[in-house]
């Protein structure tokens, strides 16, 4: 029985394949999430089965580190202080929680909740951003 090293094999087989340009049709909408410069659907070839699949969280992180500089949250507005000491910060869209859905080739749907435009981008273009565990939980295979 061959037992593969979980670390070595992805380095040998990891294949970044940009299948298509994403279509952020909402970019024009005033309150739509902001598109980021990096677009494209990313898959990896599984080292053991040979099939294409969404990258795991670790693979996504590795790909992101190799292909793009990490993006930062937009700067927050300044603190507003009232006469009695009360304080507030307008969050804008910076802390919105997005609900994102992804349909697999078999028609089954994975559903994920992510925060901010970064999380949306990661999910739409790289699969589940949070790792195999939640992706796997709601996959049927």
């Amino acid at each position, binding site marked *: 029985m061959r037992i593969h090293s979980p670390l070595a094999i992805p380095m040998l087989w990891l294949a970044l394949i940009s299948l298509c340009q994403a279509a952020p049709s*909402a970019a024009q909408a005033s309150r739509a999430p902001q598109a980021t410069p990096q677009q494209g*659907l990313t898959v990896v070839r599984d080292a053991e089965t040979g099939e294409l699949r969404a990258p795991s969280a670790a693979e996504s992180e590795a790909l992101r580190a190799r292909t793009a500089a990490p993006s930062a949250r937009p700067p927050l507005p300044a603190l507003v202080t009232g006469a009695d000491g009360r304080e507030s*910060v307008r969050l804008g869209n910076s802390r919105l929680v997005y609900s994102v859905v992804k349909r697999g080739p078999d028609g089954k749907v994975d559903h994920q909740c992510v925060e901010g435009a970064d999380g949306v981008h990661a999910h739409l273009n790289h699969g589940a951003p949070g790792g195999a565990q939640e992706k796997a939980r709601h996959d049927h295979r």
Partner: protein
Amino acid sequence: MITAKLPIRVSAGALARLAAVALLFAAGVACVAWPGAAHAATIVIVNQNAPGVGFNDPTRAEPVGGNPGTTLGEQRLIAFQHAADTWGATLDSDIPIRIDAAFEPLSCNATSAVLGAAGATEVWANFPAAPRTNTWYPAALAAKLAGEDLTDPGDAHIVATFNSQLGLTPTCVPGLTFYLGLDNNAGAQIDLVAVLLHEIAHGLGFQSFTDDETGLTLLGRPSIWDHYLLDNRSNRTWAQMTSAQRAASARAWRGLSWNGANVTAAVPGALGPLPVLSISGGAAGAAFGRYAVGVAAFGTPLGTTAFRGEVMPVVDQANGNGLACTTLSAANAQTVRGKVALVDRGVCDYAVKARNVQAAGATGMILADSVAGEVAGMPGEAPDIAIPSVRITRADGLRLKTALQTRSRTMSGVMARMSIDPERLAGADDQRRMLMYSPTVNAPGSSVSHYTTEASPNQLMEPSINADLSHEIAPPRDLTLPLLQDIGW
């Protein structure tokens, strides 16, 4: 319960926009028996859509699932009202909660889409009657606690936007549409009411405003959330930790618990027992021990009476793995007959694998993940499957396979015991506190601000909205309301 719609204009800057306001008065109505839910709040939905689109889309629609609307826009608004009504009848506040709501085109492509987004528009600290100083509260909660509306009357406390194109255009996951019924019968569609209940909860305060990736607090102050988010290894809350410590704890699987009294009191009645797999036997070697497992939605559920069997692997791949996606060969069938079959994740559905090993005579199935990560469940409907199945991590699968290398054709000497631990709860820590979602690789926005994916039954505020959810938001079925009560609702 009284529901009224009043047409208004949103602002001078949006003259072209009509706004319909749905005032949801839920006075004196309690939908649930959970203590503290006997009061009510008023939730005002401010329709931000222009005429002809979104909530005002005139496309004809047939009433569905208790939603009597006759246009797409009406049905969207009614579903939105229904979700807001559920929260309004459950929360307690003298200050009306305003939600700026719209259906607009959001990011999507042929296979993926943003369903919607919601959140608090602003946070407040050091306001009159604030329970904790130097702590951020979401706007709606701050208003309740202060007894006055801190937010400008023209602004909302929560913003919520949903995708108006989902499933309706070739470039937006064609065919995958929102289910607009109110009866929790979405089938293969996206249950809008469930998504709304989830997203509105985030807007009400079911989230930290501290960065879950860097651990940096917002302008140097913790969120009210952070006072209850406990690193269960150091026994310190996020409010007591450094940024580096917070960032590390956000990546500690099973390392974050919710330390609020309301949630902790409700956990024993809400969560089921923890499923476990124990490996023993003369050949177990380093694989000996107890394993965390995900359970299957099909087959015989695990119980207090343990299921026992000898583990034997399916091998149908050149690399030694066993996918069991087709009828097992005679050799594999002989190997797993009367045994617990070890198979690998991939290529076909979990239920297909279970069906194939069951047909070959296996009495149970252990599925080893093919992708690194934490334990997860196995969804699927398969009433024809009777054998019990559990899922283990890739790392644990490799450990088990190592022990099986000394097997003969029909024996391994590695024994499996599948059962539940009545002393432990699925989704809770050793102290029976609710676990929060903290995957080892950070998932921005998912980590920390959701319940663990190990909860059983599934909870509304897990990172994903599962198909088996009801529309309940309170115990004994759901733990969303007690968490909001912990932070001050």
